[in-house]
């Protein structure tokens, strides 16, 4: 039996958790160095104020919609914000650790897949691990190019949480699939689903930071802190939109692939099974977000709240709908019973 491989998969999983923990600490350490020094902070505050006035003037002259509010530079901190060497070094270390941890996690998922000779996402434990790996990969691929070191701690911490929970609460021994899952659609439908979740997760983290950053821009603190070293609220909002957009397209595909599979497995492509209902709810909420984002005159802050609500629905879809008996349907594959 390939049980030794499954055991190695678990060892890799533990190892990746250790490295992720180090990465989390390194990202925090990086954020500590990111905060502008007191000497710089005065310049920084002034430039921020000047820019706010500029923006205000532009808004008065042009359309009154807050959507139009775009600072002239993506970093509201302006050219005055120079990342210190120390901060850059720590950011690099944290990124390297994240790459290593993600590689270990991917190795763990692959070994599990080989051990069970099927796509390694047949129950909740496997799905959670694979989704966490997808988040890790998506972040790792995008982080260096976009200089997202500031985002690291907000991504690595949830990954750690999910891995911890899946090992303690959701753990299921490597085993064969239920007949309903024995289909190549498992590879397509489910993997696209957790890729979508990965993008929604990144977008959620950026979205929350956007709201915090926006509040700080509305009420600038006397002394700029870490938040002022982040990209401007407008830039964060655009980033979150791009991520949500990719997530939304992938989720649309998930929905359609799921319907095709349902037709093959259950004879009808749509039966309002609780999982289908929640997949649909998530889709409509993110569709509402896309509409809000495209409508002139809808405050982007409100649109972002809708996107965050969509992410809450994603979480409900994965936790409550799988585990609580109220939502009895045909997607009973958690492996928890």
């Amino acid at each position, binding site marked *: 039996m390939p049980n030794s491989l499954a055991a190695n998969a678990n060892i890799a999983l533990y190892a990746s958790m250790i490295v992720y923990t180090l990465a989390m600490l390194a990202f925090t350490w990086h954020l500590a160095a990111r905060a502008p020094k007191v000497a710089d902070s005065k310049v920084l505050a002034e430039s921020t104020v000047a820019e706010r006035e500029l923006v205000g003037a532009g808004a008065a002259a042009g359309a009154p919609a807050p959507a139009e509010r775009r600072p002239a530079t993506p970093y509201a901190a302006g050219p005055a914000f120079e990342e210190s060497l120390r901060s850059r070094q720590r950011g690099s270390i944290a990124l390297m650790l994240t790459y290593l941890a993600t590689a270990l996690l991917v190795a763990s998922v692959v070994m599990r897949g080989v051990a069970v000779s099927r796509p390694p996402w047949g129950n909740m434990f496997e799905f959670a691990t694979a989704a966490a790996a997808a988040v890790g990969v998506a972040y790792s691929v995008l982080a260096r190019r976009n200089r997202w070191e500031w985002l690291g701690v907000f991504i690595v911490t949830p990954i750690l949480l999910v891995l911890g929970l899946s090992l303690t609460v959701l753990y299921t021994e490597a085993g064969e699939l239920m007949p309903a899952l024995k289909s190549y659609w498992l590879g397509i439908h489910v993997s696209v689903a957790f890729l979508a979740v990965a993008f929604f997760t990144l977008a959620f983290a950026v979205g929350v930071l956007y709201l915090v950053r926006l509040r700080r821009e509305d009420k600038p603190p006397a002394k700029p802190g870490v938040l002022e070293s982040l990209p401007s609220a407008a830039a964060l909002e*655009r980033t979150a939109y791009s991520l949500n957009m990719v997530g939304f397209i992938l989720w*649309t595909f998930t929905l*359609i692939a799921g319907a095709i599979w349902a037709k093959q497995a259950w*004879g009808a492509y749509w039966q309002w099974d609780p999982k289908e209902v929640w997949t649909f709810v998530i889709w409509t*909420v993110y*569709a509402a977000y896309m509409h809000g984002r495209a409508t002139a005159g809808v405050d982007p802050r*409100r649109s972002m709240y809708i996107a965050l609500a969509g992410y809450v629905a994603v979480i409900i879809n994965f936790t409550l709908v799988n585990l609580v008996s109220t*939502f009895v349907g045909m997607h009973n594959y958690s492996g928890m019973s």
Partner: protein
Amino acid sequence: MTTDTPVKPRKGKGRAKDQRPEPALPDLGPLELLRWGWRQLTSMRTALFLLLLLSIAAVPGSIFPQRNIDAGRVADYIAQNPTTSPWLDRLGFFDVYASVWFSAIYLLLFISLVGCIVPRTKVHVAALRARPPKAPARLHRLDEHAELTTSLSPDEALAVARAALKRKRFRLHSHDGVSLSGESGYLRETGNLLFHLALTGIIIGMAVGHVFGWRGDIILAEGDKFASSAGTYNTISPGPWVDTESLPPFVLSLDKLHVEFNETPGRGFGQPRLFDAQTRLQRDPGSPASEETVSVNHPIAVDGADIFLLGNGYTPVVTVRDAKGTVLYREATPFLPQDGNYRSLGVIKVPSASPKQLGFTGFFLPTAEPTFANGPASIFPDAKNPELALSVWEGNLFPGGAPQSVYTLNTDEMKQVTKADGSPALVRLKPGQTYQLPGDRGSITFDNVKRFAGLSVRTDPGAPISLVSAILATLGLILGLTIKRRRVFVRVRPAADPTATDGGAGGRTGSPATVVTIGGLSKDSDPGLAAIVTAIVTAFHTTIDTATATAEPDRPAERTES
């Protein structure tokens, strides 16, 4: 949630041709009111609101049991919550997706959608034919802009810009001799419209499936044969326009149902591992039989219908005899599984028993937990230690002659059979065992047990329409979200001060110098726009005659970000 903003309703972009500030409202006549209502309904804000409403309205259907999925669970829920459930029922909470309020939301949404895409399509078709608009007066006020001075003549400068934009696949037009207008990304709106149009296609496919599709369910025991016709299905639900006389006349017999469960102790113990139905299929009664395997995820196709294996369970073969030993009943009776370990509920009705009709109701347990400490229970889904546990009733099986389910016993006009000591008679039988009913009522024998397959025959002629629409919708969504609609304008004018070029590049001194202004505009946040403006500037730089180009693209920081 989002409509209570004080901001005046404004139309979304694309639909906003007639976006002017509303004047002090005059009295609205009925026609104006209607027009106003239509505008509200087809506005993007309403669409947004309806989408949110739809998502909220869909949730109760996942929380409360639904009749279309499991009518039995609805009945249980109503029995357990006698005070709240009549109200929930009246408000449609057990049929959410067929309820008035849910239908109202999605119908409004689709009216709004159609009301939005029809005018938008007109606008877009016109835009596809139209030339790019005239360059605005002040290009430096656009999102992205750059200015440079070149020693090229104005015409040569425009030609350079034209070539650069052509390479970026812009549609170009010169409204006058000194400017150039370019537009690209028409596919964005095409994709948008395709997406929304395809959504209506999905709905049409669903409607077609509802009207012309049908499904029939059969419970078929091993060794039994089924001939398809309107009357032979256990349940059949045809669409309103289905002719039930013309169902495919296939004949299907179930030879063997292979079933495996996980026997490894631990989490996942007892989970199904394999369901395979080995069948013989005659496509019509006269044709030869072919061997076919139906399994989960692998339906077989017959005459436009698909046969799915959706369930399975046990059919104990039971014989009931009267006191003289005459056989009154001998049948493989399906018992329906109630839980993962196949504790199965069933009923045996013996109308020919006399003087009173007999009815048995109770459980079949594939692997009985022997003590019955917590009532009859099964501890494993496979038939490792099968047992029947039944209670016995006598009286009138069919009060009022009303039709009833074969899986329930109506005990309104029956009473439980008791033993001599007055305690209720409880039958517990292993295969081969016989129980003598008290008071000369005869006997019941549990002969053996066979498996049954729950088969479902379904057609959905609307599914291909929905599928194609869904694929088109995805395609449209990708185009509509990733392609950017961009306008780029170039204007040339002779430099006011000819000396501006003298020192530069040592070109043709004294030749006319031209100031080139480039402005770019995009409807959405668009990091790629800056790259296009830069590309035009670069095109001038690489042209040999370029003199002191004073390109000054804005926002250098943004290029490196996102």
